């Protein structure tokens, strides 16, 4: 199993998925023309990790902006983590937001609602 690293672009996130530590880091802005196409390798990495490693996952998010199609893709990703958590696995989400960024804080709150997995909102 490999780690997944994607360098940030002006319209896409920086991505680091580490299979040794189980830590996934997503950072920056996301508004590509085809959000599903951008997120596909991240979904695939997660499925491989679940199959081949099957250990704890921490998702650290430092998002500055998501367009609505990226928001949907990220929600689906977190929903998959929720499913994994419900199989008895250790999963944790840290949603970091810039102190005065009400919109990103609100998105985090909306994701957090209805999720059972540990989901913390942290300002920086």
């Amino acid at each position, binding site marked *: 199993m490999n780690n997944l690293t994607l360098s940030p672009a*002006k*319209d896409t996130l920086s991505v680091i998925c580490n299979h040794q530590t189980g830590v996934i880091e997503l950072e920056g802005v996301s*508004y*590509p*023309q*085809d*959000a599903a196409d951008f997120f596909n390798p991240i979904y695939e990495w997660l499925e491989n990790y679940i199959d081949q490693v099957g250990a704890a996952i921490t998702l650290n998010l430092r998002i500055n*902006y998501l*367009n*609505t*199609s990226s*928001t*949907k893709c990220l*929600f689906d990703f977190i*929903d998959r983590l929720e499913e994994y958590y419900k199989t008895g696995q250790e999963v944790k989400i840290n949603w970091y937001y810039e102190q*005065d*960024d*009400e*919109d990103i804080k609100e998105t985090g709150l*909306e994701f957090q*609602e*209805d999720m059972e997995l540990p989901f913390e909102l942290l300002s920086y």
Partner: protein
Amino acid sequence: MKSFDLLSFRQEIIESKIVLSFEGKMSQGVLVSLVDTLKEKLKVNDQDGKQYMIRKIFAIFVELAQNIQNHSLESEIIDGLETGAGIIVIREDEDSFMLTSGNNITVDAAKKLKQYCDELNKPNADELKNLYKQQLRSERSKEAKGAGIGLIDIIRKSGNPLKYEIQAVDKKTQFFTLSVNLPKVH
């Protein structure tokens, strides 16, 4: 080529308080460069650095531009992706920003979009939030490009209803204009 009076064109831009406008194919490369230009211009125009407003303008601008990208009838493949053409304009006066986008769509699509806008303009803020959450949790429809929640997001971010106008281009085509008013926070 038809004669063109640059001075009166400039005058028109200034009097209409246009901060930024673009007409043409909304490729992703164009969108990214427009976002950069917009950020730069708002920084200059707004010395107080009202990050809050800039974030909202940026978000609404991207949703409108990507509506053109995904739904314009005038489209072609650019970098392997179907890419629409249209026009987007941002104006600014003392009290508000006005973001307007327009593109051609079929008569049938215009009718559906009009109904969708009317439906979205009815709910209050809480109902709209629930609708947004519902859409976020729903399976993506195979036909729909984009997440289908862009317009809901625009209303929520602006705190204002969607304004639209439909004008006939020809028998099969209509020009759909969408306007969003974003009041300045004083």
